């Protein structure tokens, strides 16, 4: 018997050029590097179009970190829901409802900050739990359930506020309008720490990221969330409490939306029933930009943090260079698609 000739041997010796290209791609596509490539690209863009050095100032970084905080908190909850194979369109409305509730309790009704915070957290968690229960027990699609909750929560916010912003300028019992004192919690949440170098909302965002990471990566329920998102059927047959897990995901998302709503009210110093319009879409964009798949079962909150930074810096670069709002929206949309296409393409080429 003769040794069979291997025609592959000749072909498998690649040219040096293709080696360097392939290894560069492999590096870019490695799971650790891939998610930060769009962020690095945006930062490089900012460094080039630096608006006479304004991009390099710490106050610019501080502003970005403050501006992404509220939507970033929503994105943390969204990450948990998306990992579990769902979607939560209600977070923007629950944010508005929470902001209105918070202002309503503290300003006209004179509640203490802490009491109001606790009540609002319960309201947000409840809204999320209702969505979760409808998804888990009534088996209605998450998109439909949370779309309904988005409309409903917005309605409650408007009903509670009478369609007006709730500020510290309130009508007293005798019909005159008076200025009531704003509780100190507004100032605290809107303030800065570390000698004015870091916004409090940024710290709250960072804490939310940490909590989400802990839930997803360290707690038992984190495993269950990934399992349910990966395959509901397989998770169920493995004895995972699938329904409780789903309710938990939406409950956490509602809770985070309440936190975001309180921050929003503090920053605006009033409760606006029209606030947070479209925030759910920005939150989804942050999750997706980080590379988490909407199919569920994959991804994580670190990716979402990267996605939030990418989106935040992109906005900052465009606004520093005085691009019009219209152009900024168009560019953001285009770059979102480009980033996702890049991640997909690179991961496919190396698989």
């Amino acid at each position, binding site marked *: 018997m003769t040794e069979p000739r291997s025609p592959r041997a000749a072909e498998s010796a690649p040219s040096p050029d293709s080696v360097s290209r392939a290894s560069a791609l492999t590096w870019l596509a490695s799971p650790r590097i891939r998610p930060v490539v769009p962020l690095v690209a945006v930062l490089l863009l900012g460094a080039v179009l630096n608006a006479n050095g304004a991009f390099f100032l710490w106050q610019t970084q501080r502003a970005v970190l403050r501006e992404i905080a509220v939507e970033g908190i929503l994105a943390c909850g969204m990450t948990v829901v998306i990992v579990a194979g769902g979607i939560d369109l209600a977070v923007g409305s629950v944010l508005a409802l929470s902001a209105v509730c918070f202002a309503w309790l503290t300003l006209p009704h004179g509640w203490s900050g802490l009491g109001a915070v606790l009540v609002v957290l319960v309201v947000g968690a409840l809204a999320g739990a209702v969505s979760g229960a409808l998804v888990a027990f009534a088996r209605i699609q998450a998109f439909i359930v949370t779309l309904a909750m988005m409309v409903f929560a917005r309605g409650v916010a408007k009903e509670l506020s009478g369609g007006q912003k709730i500020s510290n300028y309130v009508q007293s019992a005798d019909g005159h309008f008076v200025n009531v004192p704003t509780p100190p919690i507004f100032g605290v949440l809107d303030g800065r720490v570390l000698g004015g170098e870091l916004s409090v909302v940024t710290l709250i965002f960072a804490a939310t990221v940490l909590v989400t990471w802990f839930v997803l990566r*360290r*707690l*038992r*329920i*984190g*495993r*269950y969330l*990934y*399992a349910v998102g*990966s*395959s509901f*059927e*397989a*998770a*169920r*047959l*493995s*004895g*995972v*409490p699938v329904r409780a897990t789903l309710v938990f995901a939406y409950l956490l998302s509602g809770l985070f939306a309440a936190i975001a709503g309180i921050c929003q009210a503090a920053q605006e110093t009033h409760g606006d029933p029209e606030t947070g319009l479209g925030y759910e879409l920005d939150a989804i964009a942050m999750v997706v930009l980080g590379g988490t798949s909407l199919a569920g*079962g*994959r991804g994580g909150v670190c990716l979402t943090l990267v996605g939030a930074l990418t989106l935040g810096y992109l906005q900052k670069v465009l606004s520093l260079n005085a691009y019009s709002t219209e152009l900024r929206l168009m560019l953001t949309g285009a770059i979102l698609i480009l980033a996702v296409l890049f991640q997909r393409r690179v991961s496919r080429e190396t698989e």
Partner: protein
Amino acid sequence: MALLELRRVTKSFGGTAALRDVSFELEPGEVHVLAGENGAGKSTLIRIIAGALGDYAGELRLGGRALHFDGPAAARAAGIATIHQELSLVPALSVADNLLLATPGSPLAAVDRRGAREATTRALAELGLRIDPDTPVEALSLAERQLVEIARALTTDVRVLVMDEPTSALSAPDAERLLARVKALAGRGIGVIYISHRMDEIFRVADRVTVLRDGERVLTARASELGREGLLRALLGREIAAPAVANTAEKRPIRLRVRDLACDSRPRLEPVSFELRQGELLGVAGVEGSGASTLLHALFGDGARIRGDVALDGEPYRPRAPAQAFARGVALLAGDRHASVLAAQSVLENATLSSLRRFSPAALVRRHLELAAVKPEALRVRLKAPSLDAASGALSGGNQQKVALIRCLLARPKLLLLDDPTRGIDLGARADVHALLTELAAAGTSILFRTSDLTELTALADRALVLFDGRAVATLERRELEEARLLSLMMGGRA
């Protein structure tokens, strides 16, 4: 002259030959049954005929002309219609619209609704089916859908009709009606290739039978000359020898006592009673649709409500969810791999999912505890994976099955329910799984396993329960386990 002829066809998948030098002839107007055990090469053969596999050696002749199809559309255009086990109707569309989908034409052409409805009514009437053409397909019974599928195949000029186990999901009277229609179609000069696992059906419908075994043609014979004995011998490839090993579990206490257990899930299960002792391996033999899977899932608290009495270690046992079954020490390995393995999750995450409480004191997952438990099990089942953190979906089928098995084992089950544990996995992995099951049984775990592989059943089982059409038709002791007998019972024949 033969209507359809395959000459010396050979087809390999990555080194393993699925078909070796197989020749096959189909006469016009005949029903030609293709028989063989799982993996014998039947589906490869019909995929070649249907144009789904183009890369084979040998020759295909239709009406005397040598042809090579470059896709299913080419085969259809040449007059070969194939009806697969998974129906290809669009459930939300009406019957008329489904038939319209099959007619060639520009996607932008105007639809002649009235003409389509009339043509549909005519086509259905030919098959003896009287239903409103506007009925959505999802509102039809399975038997009606099967007939609509045939009607759709017949809208084009069909010379060869290939049917892959068309009655596997039908009740006996529905199957009977379908068989009558198949005979009538053959009477019109169409050549029918018919795949079936049911003994009665084969001899009811077949003019000729071709038996495949291990990718080779064993014989082609007239059904009347072959006889049931002859068919069984050809399918098994040898004379029947009985293994005689004593059931070692005979004296042990009873673990599971099932009295008149019935379940309305589809396929349904009619009242069945049996007992399972500690350390006993009870095989459940039954083809797809026999109710064997339903039995396993019913005992796992999955699916429709169950009737009857079940006792586990003497205590009443009626789980209403898989989580409750796990709490009582019952684990299930699902037959469908999508329902048993989380492809996106790592080997480790898959392995510990069912017993995660043990590895997460105070709700915190402890990786070192997981590793300490999973590593020895991975060695024991000879798992081949790049690492325990690799995504399970990237492993081979056999190794995915092993991951799912580790998950069951880590739940430390008293009763293990296995639905076709070695389906689609290679011989090496299969031997590993067999060794593991024997070892588990020896250690006292009771195992209820369904399989469609008779060699596996006779090699492993202490006893076997045979299901056919939702009913338990026999319980065989170890010394009675013969493949021919089992096969006959699984196909609805007598022992």
